[in-house]
């Protein structure tokens, strides 16, 4: 395979060979030309004159390679595309001859003459007709003819039909033709051959955006494919089913999808669960149905549900006010059955914490209310705390739930005992919470009811809902606690920022980020309250050379998980001999608390010559990002 230099040198030779009378050489020359164009697209024009007569070849080999050459040219350059549009009638004629002509032993494959050439011509027609009405119109007939006349019993015929369908979908064909194409795909779906079904599902996935209604007609076949044994087919059927869900068929589809969730392989469960949640959110016919669906997903595929869906679910439950009693009852029952699926347990314990009083009082309109006593509920929650199956996060959730129940239940002493036991737990997170709650009982008992009130309805925001609420709970210092209306307790993770918080280590040592050629850049840190995820860095640039550094520009870039905001600098002249500094403020948002890294670019002019430098800053002190 030649390199680009070789291609440049030999292109002239190749071009000459394209015109020889020997067809064997010509076809090889055509493929060489394809390779040359792939390596060095600028040489395309060189081959243009030779292509004039290519399509009038008799020899199929040369014809085939010429079509490949034309395809390559048209793909690479829109000018060529426009130029070759006039070849459409010729291509149509060749294709027609291929189909109509009788049996030709040389090129025949199972009764179809030269399928390779047919497919290539269809490909070229697709490219030529893509956004062009006239060419598309010229092709309509031949495409319909190919679609109806090709035999489908063998793979070859199906290959041609597949290519035809792709072409019909891409060009500006009339709607009748499109419907024909989708029907062909529907027929493919019923075929026993797995390959063909796979191909049909892939193409339907591509067309479902544009021809939604037509694909809907084949919905039942697609749903049947969910039960196929082959993994790739199942995956494609699942994706397609999610694309086809709409308000009308949501109930039926959801039933099938939940059944699929029960029986599918673990690798699908996460995707399926998220898909189910999304679909349910968009098209849920009623709140109760929505909650039932969520419960079903949690109980069957609970451990595969993604972590971020837990807060989403909690938000959803909070917002459906009238369903609180029903929800908490169902979650309680599910919890009694099985405590191994963490997302389910987390959601359930959160709900019991919030709505435990509804559970105990036995009001429930939707279902038969169950008789539960406060002790039983506390037993369940304590069981979660000691169980080996619970992760630390789950334990945190259940401890907070127990705490919240102290305002809703009357057996406060029992709760006090539990909380004080965990004050000496080995797990730091649990210990911290228990200590804070203990303090709440002892010193701040007057605040307790207000603090542990019910959560308000959260607004949906594009970022995580809970972090918005953290912003509003700005008060953190114990000395500043006044009995004004402290906002209700937020998500369990954020509790500690609301309640008594230890004094954060606010003194983060400054560091030198860059020191080269007389330019020194120091970073000093502050932590921005209220949001502990934002680090505010002030850079101080000083210049120890004898001349001023003018046009000083400081730029910084951070990895994708961070966000950076650069405020304007104090000036862009760094005076010589350390007589002054240029300061600039950078704010870095670090929501995932990852190690802070930064790439900086410095440009300045020193003694008339511009200087540019890139550097990476890795030596941030750990307190700046923890």
């Amino acid at each position, binding site marked *: *395979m030649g390199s680009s230099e070789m291609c440049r040198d030999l292109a002239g030779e190749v071009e000459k060979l394209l015109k020889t009378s020997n067809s064997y050489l010509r076809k090889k020359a055509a493929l060489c030309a394809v390779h040359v164009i792939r390596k060095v697209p600028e040489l395309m024009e060189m081959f243009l004159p030779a292509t004039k007569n290519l399509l009038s070849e008799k020899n199929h*080999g040369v014809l085939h390679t010429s079509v490949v050459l034309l395809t390559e040219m048209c793909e690479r350059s829109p000018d060529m595309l426009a130029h070759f549009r006039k070849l459409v009638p010729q291509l149509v004629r060749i294709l027609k001859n291929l189909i109509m002509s009788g049996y030709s032993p040389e090129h025949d494959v199972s009764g179809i003459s030269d399928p390779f050439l047919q497919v290539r011509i269809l490909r070229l027609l697709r490219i030529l007709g893509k956004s062009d009405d006239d060419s598309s119109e010229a092709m309509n007939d031949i495409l319909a003819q190919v679609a109806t006349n090709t035999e489908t019993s063998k793979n*070859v015929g199906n290959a041609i039909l597949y290519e035809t369908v792709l072409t019909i979908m891409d060009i500006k064909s009339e709607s009748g033709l499109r419907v024909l194409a989708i029907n062909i795909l529907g027929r493919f779906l019923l075929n026993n051959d797995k390959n063909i079904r796979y191909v049909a599902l892939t193409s339907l996935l591509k067309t479902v955006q544009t021809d939604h209604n037509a694909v809907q007609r084949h919905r039942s076949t697609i749903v049947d494919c969910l039960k196929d044994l082959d993994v790739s087919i199942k995956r494609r059927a699942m994706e397609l089913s999610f694309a086809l869900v709409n308000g009308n068929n949501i109930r039926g589809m959801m039933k099938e999808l939940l059944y699929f969730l029960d029986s599918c392989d673990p690798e699908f469960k996460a995707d399926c669960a998220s898909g189910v949640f999304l679909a349910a959110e968009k098209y849920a016919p009623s709140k109760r149905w929505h909650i039932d669906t969520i419960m079903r997903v949690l109980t069957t595929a609970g451990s595969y549900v993604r972590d971020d869906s837990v807060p989403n679910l909690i938000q959803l439950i909070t917002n459906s006010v009238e369903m609180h009693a029903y929800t908490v009852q169902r979650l309680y029952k599910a919890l009694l059955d099985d405590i191994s699926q963490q997302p389910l347990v987390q959601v359930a314990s959160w709900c019991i914490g919030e709505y435990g009083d509804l559970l105990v009082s036995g009001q429930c309109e939707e279902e038969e209310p169950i008789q539960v006593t406060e002790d039983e509920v506390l037993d369940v929650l304590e069981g979660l705390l000691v169980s080996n199956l619970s992760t630390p996060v789950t334990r945190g959730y259940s401890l907070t739930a127990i705490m919240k129940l102290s305002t809703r239940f009357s057996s406060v002493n029992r709760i006090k005992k539990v909380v004080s036991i965990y004050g000496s737990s080995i797990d730091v997170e649990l210990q911290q919470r228990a200590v804070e709650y203990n303090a709440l009982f002892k010193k701040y008992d007057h605040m307790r009811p207000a603090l542990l009130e019910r959560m308000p309805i959260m607004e949906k925001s594009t970022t995580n809902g809970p972090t918005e609420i953290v912003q509003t709970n700005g008060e953190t210092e114990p000395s500043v606690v006044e009995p004004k209306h402290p906002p209700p307790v937020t998500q369990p993770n954020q509790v500690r920022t609301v309640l008594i918080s230890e004094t954060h280590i606010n003194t983060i040592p400054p560091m030198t980020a860059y020191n080269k050629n007389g330019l020194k850049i120091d970073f000093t840190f502050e932590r921005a309250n209220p949001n502990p995820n934002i680090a505010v860095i002030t850079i101080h640039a000083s210049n120890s050379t004898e001349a001023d550094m003018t046009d000083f520009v400081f730029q910084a870039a951070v990895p994708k998980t961070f966000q950076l905001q650069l405020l304007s600098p104090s000036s862009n002249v760094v005076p010589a001999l350390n007589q002054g500094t240029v300061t600039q403020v950078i704010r870095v948002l670090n929501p995932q608390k990852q190690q802070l890294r930064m790439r900086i670019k410095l440009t300045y002019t020193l003694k008339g010559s511009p200087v540019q430098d890139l550097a990476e800053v890795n030596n941030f002190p750990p307190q700046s990002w923890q």
Partner: protein
Amino acid sequence: MMRFLLLFSRQGKLRLQKWFTPISEREKKKIIRDMTSMVLARQPRSCNFLHWKDLKIIYKRYASLYFCLAIENQENELLALEVIHRYVELLDKYFGNVCELDIIFNFEKAYFILDEFLMGGEIQETSKQMVNRSIEASDMLQETMEEYMSKPAF
């Protein structure tokens, strides 16, 4: 275009490899390892198409040999199956009832046939007779075994 074509046995031994793009030796070995493990792990009645990186892998099993062809994403998979089948037919016509041993002992002929059929990642000649004629023509230029044995040795 096609990126590569591999032939390997059920035990994972590579019989033929044809690369249509320049790749380093290390890359080639890695690809061979990936392909053999992926294809040999497939269930017997699953579909013949796989996804690997940004390519589609089409494989077909003929007796004890797996033919594995990698094509780019916009190519027609069903046609790739036909390409594999056509190559097998060409081998069959040339060797007469081809089996794995024929390919092992006459691998250079297998490569020649492949080179007449595919070039630069594209199909070169769609007619079976033409390919066979070219191979026969090149065979005529070769000496036969008898001629070689009867030459005087100096």
